[in-house]
């Protein structure tokens, strides 16, 4: 029986509903025994029609739509959108607003990376780390709530600046949070760099070579883990990053070698937490005084935007990589075209390479190591008779498909 089993291929659908995935995506893996020999990815399960919606709302309303593309990438999408509109309309954002935007973006990065570290630990069955990192994450969420009024979907960005300022008391609370995170970071680096079981489960799993990463146009920590120093904060002087001179980090800076495996991708996000903490500290110190909005009155802003004709493109370094928005305005109430490309869009190309020759037990951690934010990747669902699927129907379809594919094996 063992021999027959090793020759037969079984198709295991991972998703769209699966405990390992936090968002729906279907990855069909063909396995022989415990080895993966083929993959096929289908997206679209949570495609919501956002770009289409954006072309039917005025630019200010679309900021809030952009925010809801993803629950974690909450500053980077509206930031890129606002920057694209500002590029098209030739609006110069005040310097203090640029620094504030940077602070919010880095706070979001810390939050997202802590979440990822917990999820990665959960995938390999190490729940203690999950609970520890998510407990630590509460602190940054509290600070974000203090600054913006909400933990996620903050609504803090506006075309031409930000809506709220940071007062001195709030700045001191931020510094308290940073000193708390010094201790958390020390503990987390001890865990991730020294623990044997984590290394056992992630070292040399899902290796992406530098050449593959360049050809597939990977972005963010996924690319940096393979040794490519691509970082939009370093390369493109948007917001206050031009002044901060950010340097892209690679695993060389923390473990001394680059292998491009799941372990590298995991610890990349660990050291970026440290980098974000330093950036926030510098921003708080060097922030200039001044206005925080290009145009205080929203009605006048909208009126200005209605007479704009032009195109804008903007890049932002989201926690998962390079994010690009393209907007076209044609003297209309609504933007004529809006394109969003989230970083996971690009990083999904890596899944095929990563899963090649993986074992089934490694699939969750390998896929999770690119930190997929599937909601960012899917942005339109056309609700039709067939596609409005409830959870049960999706699961039913998934199970039926498995049975159909299995044929008479097992």
């Amino acid at each position, binding site marked *: 029986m063992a021999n027959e*089993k090793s020759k037969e291929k079984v198709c295991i659908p991972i998703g769209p509903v699966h*405990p390992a995935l936090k968002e729906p995506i279907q990855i069909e893996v063909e396995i022989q025994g415990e080895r993966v020999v083929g993959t096929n990815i289908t997206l679209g399960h949570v495609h919501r029609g956002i770009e289409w919606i954006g072309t039917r709302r005025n630019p200010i309303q679309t900021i809030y739509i952009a925010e809801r593309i993803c629950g974690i990438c909450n500053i980077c999408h509206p930031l890129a959108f606002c920057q694209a509109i500002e590029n098209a309309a030739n609006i110069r954002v005040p310097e203090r607003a640029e620094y504030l935007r940077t602070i919010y973006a880095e706070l979001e990065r810390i939050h997202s990376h802590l979440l990822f570290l917990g999820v990665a630990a959960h*995938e390999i*069955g190490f729940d*203690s780390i999950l*609970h520890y990192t998510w407990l630590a994450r509460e602190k940054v969420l509290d600070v974000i709530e203090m600054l913006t009024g909400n933990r996620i979907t903050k609504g803090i960005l506006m075309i031409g600046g930000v809506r709220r300022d940071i007062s001195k008391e709030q700045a001191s609370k931020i510094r308290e949070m940073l000193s708390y995170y010094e201790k958390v970071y020390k503990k987390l680096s001890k865990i991730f760099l020294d623990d044997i079981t984590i290394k*056992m*489960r992630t070292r040399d799993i899902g290796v992406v070579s530098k050449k593959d990463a360049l050809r597939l146009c990977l972005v963010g920590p996924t690319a940096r883990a393979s040794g490519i120093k691509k970082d939009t904060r370093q390369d493109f002087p948007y917001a206050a990053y031009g002044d901060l001179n950010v340097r892209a980090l690679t695993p060389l800076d923390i473990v001394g070698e680059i292998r491009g495996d799941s372990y590298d991708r995991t610890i990349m996000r660990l050291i970026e937490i440290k980098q974000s903490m330093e950036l926030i500290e510098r921003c708080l110190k060097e922030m200039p005084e001044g206005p925080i909005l290009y145009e205080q009155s929203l009605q006048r802003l909208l009126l200005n935007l209605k007479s704009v004709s032009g195109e804008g493109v903007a890049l932002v370094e989201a926690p998962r990589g390079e994010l690009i928005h393209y907007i076209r305005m044609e003297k209309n109430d609504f933007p004529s075209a809006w394109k969003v490309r989230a970083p996971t869009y690009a990083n999904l190309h890596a899944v095929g390479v990563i899963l090649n020759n993986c074992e089934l*037990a490694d699939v969750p951690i390998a896929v999770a190591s690119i930190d997929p934010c599937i909601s960012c990747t899917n942005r339109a669902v056309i609700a039709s008779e067939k596609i409005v699927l409830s959870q049960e129907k999706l699961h039913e379809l998934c199970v039926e498909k498995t049975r159909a594919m299995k044929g008479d094996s097992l």
Partner: protein
Amino acid sequence: MIDYTIAYTIANALIIIFAALFISLLFHGIERKIVARMQARIGPPLLQPFIDIKKLFMKENIVPDSAVKWLFNLMPIVALSSAIVLFLYIPFGMPAILNEHGDLILVLYLLSIPPLALAIGAFASGSSFAAVGAQRELVLLISYEFVLSVVIFSFAWLLSVCTQNTNVFSLNAPALNPPWSLVGPIGFIGIALLLISTLAVMPGKAGKIPADIAEAKTEIAEGVLVEYSGFNLALLYMTQAVRTFGFAALIVALFFPWNASIFIDIPKDTVLEPIFFILKAGLVMFFSAFFISAAVARFKVDQAARFYISTVFSIALLGLLLILLDLTLRGF
């Protein structure tokens, strides 16, 4: 007269079975609380397993269309009954109900039936996730049974050499002649090594991290348990809890068979003895299962197999060799 004895035995057996079930679930609740505290959480109430079982009994029992129905429904019953029956043979401070009707070899067989039943039930369910889980369960079973057999036979061999006891596989044998007192210092270390390797088998037997591979939640959506629901799932849930306590009970019966009355000045053969036994079993479970499950990540099945077959087996073998050395030195 004979009828009376049988009725008496059956009544006692039922009491033991329900008590064992109750205590296993209680220990499961304690485990969840302890693990939660170790992870800086509050954790569920101590009686959570009972609440879970009650809920599961109320839920619908769904049998997949592609399942082999009679096997699918039979296996949970087989698993739970074989796990529970174990307690009729292990002495727990007082002699076991079916004392001398079964020995260590029988216990070993009984311990390996639940994983087999789980695997058969998983294959019978027709789900590919369950099939992968079942494969893993069987690989794991082979790995740790190997180690366990070495330990059992070392014990039996030691007892046969050192004592006049002809029934060395009896479960009372370690109580009559505690193995620790039969050997000198080198043998002591040998038995300690055997103890360590048996404790290492516990996560595998009990289905806890790092060896909860067959039920790996994030990898194969609960693996062997994925298609079970309602009544069947309640039985399997109880089986998992009973396996843990049962194996801990076996470890106590083999390695720590002393009664409380030896240490403290209390009357012999009262209900305090089983309580002492339960405490010992709890300590064993804490150190071999609860503590470890919060501290490390999950093995992959080949890593677990390699761990048991090479590392743990070597430790057990070394233990046996040390005992051998000790006995030879003392002229047996």
